[in-house]
């Protein structure tokens, strides 16, 4: 099996002047992505996902370590990589507002030397698949955010890359637009064997649903890397409980308890929904009495299936959002 991406002990620091290091975005990470794989990078904001993508996209050099993309070194052989990759970032609108959707796509296709006829054909095909054909001749500045993001995704695929990086491609989109993009991604990987996709997201469901393998990244380090089902199997000994309570002070600062691996709270109006990952169910009574002592009242309590979010809580000790 050939690797589409090989990251070997990579560190990236962003420095100030002189020897001062301001931030370590990546800290000695290694991973391999197989050709034809849909690989996910899962982590909270600031985990280092975008930094890694930028290195893989030849936009940033690693401070230490080596990176090979499609068999080529990102530092020295970046010219050989660029023709075969593309990148789509969520929440970013590339191109020019005064041009139409079709003109913007055409412009970017020309930067990859795609013959105009082929580019036109691909554009029409993709515009149709995304339901954007009727907006093809609208100026970009007049279309909606979801439509712009669809155009952005089309831009990434119009060059028919062997490897594509999708950095939070559904960020801020409504359910329908997200679904359209996800279903396209799934189909693309299925229909084009040998093409590789690296997806970063902080939407657990997206990673769970789409990815062959997922690496969980936090504070510049990879904490685990496996298929979603294997990752969830890590929690074999652990159990997940959802407890709905009235809001109470100290919701976010549970004391450490034997058997409690992690938790994640969300407030919904005057109620709180907290997910606890425990490896000893006996700790639940201790959790309940803590909630009561703080003035919280239990409304509902239930055991649930493990998700990637639980894996994250298990590994990091806190929730993703």
């Amino acid at each position: 099996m050939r690797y589409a991406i090989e990251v070997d002990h990579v560190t990236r620091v962003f420095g100030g002047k002189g020897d001062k290091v301001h931030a370590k975005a990546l800290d000695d990470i290694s991973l391999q992505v197989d050709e034809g794989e849909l690989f996910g990078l899962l982590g909270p904001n600031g985990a280092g996902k975008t930094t890694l993508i930028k290195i893989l996209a030849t936009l940033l050099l690693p401070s230490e370590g080596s990176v090979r993309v499609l068999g080529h070194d990102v530092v020295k052989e970046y010219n050989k990589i660029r023709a075969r990759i593309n990148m789509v970032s969520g929440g970013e609108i590339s191109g020019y507002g005064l041009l139409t959707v079709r003109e913007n796509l055409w412009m970017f296709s020309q930067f990859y030397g795609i013959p105009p006829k082929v580019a036109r054909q691909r554009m029409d095909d993709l515009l149709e698949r995304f339901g954007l054909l009727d907006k093809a001749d609208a100026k970009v500045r007049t279309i909606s955010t979801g439509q712009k993001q669809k155009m952005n995704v089309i831009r990434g695929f119009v060059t028919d890359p062997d490897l594509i990086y999708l950095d939070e491609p559904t960020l801020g989109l409504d359910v329908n637009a997200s679904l359209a993009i996800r279903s396209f991604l799934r189909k693309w990987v299925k229909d084009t064997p040998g093409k590789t996709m690296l997806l970063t997201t902080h939407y657990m469901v997206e990673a769970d649903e789409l990815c062959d393998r997922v690496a969980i990244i936090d504070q510049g380090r990879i904490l685990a890397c496996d298929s979603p089902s294997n990752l969830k199997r890590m929690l074999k000994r652990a159990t997940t409980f959802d407890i709905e309570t009235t809001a109470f002070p100290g919701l976010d600062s549970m004391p450490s308890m034997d058997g409690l691996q992690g938790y994640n709270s969300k407030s919904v109006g005057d109620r709180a929904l907290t997910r606890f990952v425990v490896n000893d169910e006996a700790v639940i009574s201790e959790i309940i009495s803590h909630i009561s002592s703080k003035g919280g009242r239990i409304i509902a309590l239930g055991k649930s299936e493990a998700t990637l979010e639980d894996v994250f809580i298990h590994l990091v000790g806190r929730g993703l959002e």
Partner: protein
Amino acid sequence: MDWLLNLRAVKGRAYPRAVGGLREPSWMFFDTLLPLLGIAAFVFYYQALGAPEVYTGYVIIGGAMTAYWLNVLWSMATQFYWEKETGNLELYMMAPMSKMSVLAGMALGGMILTSVRAVSTIVLGVIIFQVEMDISSPGLLAAVFITTLIALYGLGMLFSSLYMLWGRGAWHMSNLMQEPIYLVSGFYFPVREIGFYFALGAAIIPITLGLDAMRQLLFGNETQGLLPVTTELALLLVSAVAFIVAAHFALKKMEYLGRKEGRLTMRWQ
């Protein structure tokens, strides 16, 4: 080098410049009528001073060339910086074409767009102020004009490369250069008036020699040129090549630095 890829990239980038710029109707007001007001003011200033009529012609030609100088400063030099802010630069950088093609495309599109403004300035200026020009050597005039544009936009490509990693400093640098170049390049008077050696120094900006040569060709003996027209044309050719080669190396260096320091994608500097 993949020539076909790069030619397509040039065309791809020139298109939004040439077409997008003309698509927004406000350009007609801002880019043709308003600049003419400033030019007219200089014409009236000369009239108030009792200057010979040929000076009106100098101002009209200078004013037309101003359009190119402003385009180079504001839409070439600062463009990569602006592209960075709008999120396009990283997409340009990770695309396989030579980044010189993007610059060349911007230059070509800019030249086409700006020519509309420059031509309208000349036409309106000639009609309103009754300027007489003598086009007895059209071939040489065209050669001087085209070479001037290539050299000037070559300089713009060099600036663009150098400014790529700068933040707002790039914008301010362009702003800073605008007026001094109007003065030393002789936009509103024959450049020789500022002194021979001083003007020769100012010839580093291609528009200095280009303007001087065009004035010599259009207004004949009345204009005391800096150097003979053919010498100026030769110097312009040299500077065109020099700026484009320098831009190529500067771009490579800046791209490397940008990747190393992570500044290709850093915004709001």
